[in-house]
């Protein structure tokens, strides 16, 4: 379980990190918490000559709570998301989801930036960020741009991020007061990825629904949200069941996954409705 060798860099600002990426092209990768990347490197399924550790870049840290939006640095860990009181008050859905990711040790290292940028369909944060209508800030050689979470995911491990860009910050609109929310996840054991997971928000005449690990990208469905906003739970579930596209794997056959997806989505909707006021 020893990965291939690499040159190690620990730059202290984003510009230096981007310039190392530019110099080495696809021979270079950034590492955040490393709890997706290092296991892949140990299996020799990921191999790069240059590894850029982002831990010393202060601009990637910190959570800022504004009245309209919160911004979260890419290097903020799941543990920080869970323990940050201001964030729990402003957007409680994030904590509810983060608590279901991996296990305590992994949450101390695993970052929100790594979780959303990796493009792994099994990760919980991409679907959550689509439900929350988050925007991702990308920094690259040509400066900074923003991409909506709902437009970021193209296929498994393929995203709108260019090779020479780093996902640096996440901006999330603060839901209106009284918004009901829920994150529901079915997994085989602690630390497992979801068999199915659902993020739901309802409030102020609108609703947003996203699901995880039921296609090669997270699935946010406009039609499902519209149906739920109109109070049509069956219509919401049926729109979402039409949007997902699970494949059979060691978490079960397609029929089972669709069944679990509907159960999980209904549970999430019921809990979100019970919290809405």
């Amino acid at each position: 379980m020893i990965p291939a060798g690499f040159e190690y860099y620990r730059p202290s600002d984003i510009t230096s990190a981007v310039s190392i990426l530019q110099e080495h092209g696809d021979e270079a990768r950034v590492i955040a918490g490393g709890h997706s990347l290092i296991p892949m490197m140990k299996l020799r399924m990921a191999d790069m000559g240059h590894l850029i550790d982002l831990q010393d870049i202060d601009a990637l840290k910190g959570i800022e709570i504004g009245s309209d939006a919160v911004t979260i640095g890419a290097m903020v860990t799941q543990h920080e998301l869970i323990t940050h009181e201001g964030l729990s008050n402003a957007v409680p859905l994030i904590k509810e989801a983060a608590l279901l990711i991996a296990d305590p040790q992994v949450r101390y290292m695993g970052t929100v930036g790594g979780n959303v940028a990796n493009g792994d369909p099994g990760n919980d944060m991409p679907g959550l960020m689509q439900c929350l209508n988050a925007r991702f800030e990308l920094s690259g050689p040509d400066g900074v741009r923003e991409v909506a979470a709902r437009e970021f995911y193209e296929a498994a491990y393929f995203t709108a991020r260019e090779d020479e860009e780093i996902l640096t910050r996440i901006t999330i609109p603060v839901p209106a007061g009284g918004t009901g929310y829920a994150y529901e996840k079915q997994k085989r054991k602690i630390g497992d990825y979801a068999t199915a997971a659902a993020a739901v928000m309802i409030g102020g005449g609108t609703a947003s629904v996203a699901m995880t690990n039921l296609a090669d990208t997270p699935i946010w469905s406009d039609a499902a949200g519209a149906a739920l906003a109109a109070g049509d739970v069956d219509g919401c579930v049926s729109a979402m069941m039409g949007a997902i596209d699970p494949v059979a794997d060691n978490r079960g056959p397609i029929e089972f996954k669709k069944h679990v997806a509907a159960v999980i989505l209904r549970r999430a909707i019921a809990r979100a409705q019970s919290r809405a006021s």
Partner: protein
Amino acid sequence: MSKMHVKMTVNGKEVEGLAEPRTLLIHFLRENLNITGPHIGCETSHCGACTVDLDGKSVKSCTVFVAQAQGKELTTVEGLVNEDGSLGVLQEMFREHHGLQCGFCTPGMITRAHRLLQENPNPTEEEIRFGMAGNICRCTGYQNIVKSIAAAADTLNAQKEAAE
């Protein structure tokens, strides 16, 4: 790949060594520093036997490169003894309440429980189970591990109260 000069503080002592950046922290601890408390169980970040405390976080040292730990402060199970070398409270309570059978997972269990009690000195049973979910034991069924940690929390709280 050339080796790097690694420096860190382990159990209060400054240590150094030469290692390739790709060296896993668990291998550096065990092979370069001869600190063999943290164990290699699964080596795939599942079992928690290699758990160490890294700058105040419980981490699985099989999933950290030594380069990432450069300059940091580490505590292993060896560092959780009392100043006179006798067993620390958590260690003593694991002994007292039979919180182990074969003992292979115990260093990771105790090191993780140490951080859990630092963050939550009065955990409920549910909080202990949730907080220990990254550590696997194949012998005990966990009941006595949970009891040991609860007893350690009580003892530490009583000590704190007596000191005040």
